[in-house]
């Protein structure tokens, strides 16, 4: 029972491991798909975002550049106007230039508005710099308007003075601020491009690493799981073998406990065992044989010799009577026969006598002939006798002792 239980546990464990491994593979598969999807979506999101930002950035830089062109145009017109001061052409130039400047400023206003809608998502630096540019343009524009109103009173020289001392500084400042805005915008665009490349690079890189790492992980995990399954199987096998060995050795142990080592016959315990099965169930004949004065043989030739003699006798008994009775060597020189069912009471009586005399027959041991006499007792058991094993054997013993007391070399049948 115990052995079977162990085996069952092991196979259960093996099944569990297989289930666990397949579940883990399943989960990892789902994780890989999930992570890949997320990374791809994130990459796409970053790409779209960056693309939009870059497009807006490009447009806003283009818009500032348009403002710059118009602003330069204003300045050219102002210089033309100033240089025409004091000439007869001033009226015509003033009209022409005035129209150009108005047109340029209208364009600047238009582009400024356009820039502000595009610029919504760009950095603070860019917004601030454009703010400065816008105010510088506003200051320049106001000064131009003031000069325009005084145009009639200006001479070439005073116009030059005003241009150099008041208009040019405002023009330079505004031009510098516009240029700075374009530079910051371009830098911002470059940074965005770099950042998006970097983010996408990192995303691709980490996805690759993740996949490679997962595959390697799966490989090792799978291998270790396969190893453990193989190990479990090996252990299972080993345990089965160990169980078998244990059963065998247990049987051996049982056998040795039930067998007399010297004669190879079953011993007293085995007799008890056999009798307890028979008593109360069937009728049977039982006989006990004891070699008279066996101690003298031991004293005369030594124990080894005595043992050799007993072994020879036992061998002969086994050869001749195994088919009639189950034989036991219940102590050194005492044998017991439980006759089989097919042996009749009379036959048992005859066989007992035959055996008793047979044991005593001259026997060669180490080239020394030994002849003994044997006493025995015989009992015909009936279930109705109502005896337990001990009482039965005591009865047998006392009959045997009575035979010995009466001179030995005889058989007493218990009535």
């Amino acid at each position: 029972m115990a052995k079977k239980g162990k085996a069952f546990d092991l196979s259960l464990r093996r099944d569990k491991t297989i289930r666990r491994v397949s579940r883990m593979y399943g989960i990892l598969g789902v994780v890989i798909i999930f992570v890949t999807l997320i990374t791809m979506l994130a990459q796409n999101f970053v790409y779209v975002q960056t693309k939009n930002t870059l497009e807006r950035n490009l447009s806003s830089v283009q818009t500032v550049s348009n403002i710059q062109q118009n602003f330069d145009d204003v300045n050219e017109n102002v210089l033309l106007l100033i240089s025409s001061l004091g000439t007869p052409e001033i009226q015509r130039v003033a009209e022409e230039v005035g129209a150009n400047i108005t047109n340029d400023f209208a364009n600047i206003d238009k582009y400024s508005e356009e820039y502000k809608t595009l610029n919504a998502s760009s950095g603070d630096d860019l917004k601030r710099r454009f703010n400065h540019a816008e105010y510088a343009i506003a200051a320049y524009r106001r000064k131009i308007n003031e000069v325009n109103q005084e145009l009639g009173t200006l001479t070439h020289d005073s116009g030059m003075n005003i241009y150099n001392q008041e208009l040019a500084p405002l023009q330079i400042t505004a031009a510098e601020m516009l240029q700075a805005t374009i530079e910051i915008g371009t830098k911002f665009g470059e940074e965005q491009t770099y950042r998006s490349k970097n983010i996408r690079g990192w995303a691709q890189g980490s996805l690759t690493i993740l996949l490679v790492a997962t595959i390697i992980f799966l490989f090792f995990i799978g291998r270790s799981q396969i190893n453990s399954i193989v190990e479990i199987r090996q252990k299972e096998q080993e345990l089965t073998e160990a169980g078998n060995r244990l059963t065998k050795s247990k049987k051996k142990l049982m056998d040795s406990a039930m067998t007399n080592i010297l004669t190879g016959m079953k011993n007293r315990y085995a007799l008890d065992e056999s009798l307890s099965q028979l008593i109360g169930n069937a009728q049977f004949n039982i006989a006990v044989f004891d070699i008279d004065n066996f101690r003298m043989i031991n004293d005369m030739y030594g124990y080894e010799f005595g043992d050799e003699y007993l072994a020879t006798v036992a061998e002969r008994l086994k050869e001749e009577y195994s088919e009639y009775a189950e034989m036991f060597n219940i102590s050194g020189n005492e044998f017991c026969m439980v006759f089989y069912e097919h042996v009749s009471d009379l036959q048992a009586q005859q066989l007992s006598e035959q055996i008793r005399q047979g044991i005593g027959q001259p026997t060669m041991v180490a080239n020394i002939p030994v002849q003994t006499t044997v006493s025995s007792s015989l009992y015909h058991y009936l279930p109705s006798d109502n005896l337990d094993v001990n009482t039965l054997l005591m009865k047998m013993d006392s009959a045997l002792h009575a035979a010995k007391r009466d001179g030995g070399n005889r058989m007493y049948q218990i009535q």
Partner: protein
Amino acid sequence: MKKKSRILKIAAAGILALSMLPLTGCHPAPEQDVKTINVAVIVKDMNSTYWNPVWSACDDLQAELGNSINILKLGPQEESAEAQIPVIQDAINQKVDAIVLAACDPDAENEVLAEATAANIPIITIDSDVTYEGRVSYVGTMNKNAGESAARCAADLLDGEGTIGVIYHGTAATATERCDGFLNQLEGKVEAPPEMAAGSGSKQNNSLPEATDEAGNPIQQESETEAMVSYANIKIAEVLDGKSDWEKSKEQAEKLINDDHVDLIFATNRKGAWGACEAITELGKQGEVYVVGFDYFENDGKNAEMYLSKGILNTMIIQNPYNMGYLGVRYAMEAAKGEPIPSLVDTGAVLVTADNINDSDVQFLINN
């Protein structure tokens, strides 16, 4: 033992995977190629709020240009050449790539500036120029020009007739230049203005194109010496030193009003303007005497805007220290890279009156 070797294998696999990283993801950072340019910005006095716009321009530039520039904000604890020279020396010792300097004295620092030139450090002056010829550029108000603008404005205000008193602020170059410009304009001694250099952002040539008629022939320009307002009836009463102190300036203004009966006081700096406004208020001369003065002032709950609205301060000439700082450092960067920059950059001065004080760009100027 077995378990250990498995961990080792996994670690080896991890390292292998990580080693693939450079193949897949990384792009070299463009910033790495950019050399950081160290620019020392040295002002006259670390404790004066006048330089705040310059510092804010520096902060903006630092934010805009990132690691391509490193701005060191320096200056002495008090406004003097003696205190400023060691600061310049320090910057030279630190091997900065360029120096932006607001000089405390036009002459006294020339020696140490020559050392900077010897160390191949370009010098850009802002706000106050030096006489040292080796400085690469001056970025700031052309004080003489601003003085002339102030004179034109004063003459307009008096409608060509009246008495003017002047309060200047000590020996500072700005005081002398503004005074010179103002007086020369009124006395008709204005020289031909210096040809202005175009800003680097402007692609065009700022020199005057020759005016042509419709046929393309050059137009003969009329010789014109007459100013738009005649200065013949304008009298300069006295030119007094307010010593860049508002109480001294007030004292001098009282003298001009009481003794010289001036109609207008021209002050070359904020302390002078403030003293003059105080004097007019105390003497009850509102509407009779006007002030035309440099720079915005705010002190003791009184400010330039208040006097402007009362009509005492008629015109305030506002410089643009933010732009001085911004353009100064921008040009310094270009000079450090060996690119050519204009030797004179006028950041201009805006004449602020009650009419335009609320314009967005003027407010922006005042608040920056």
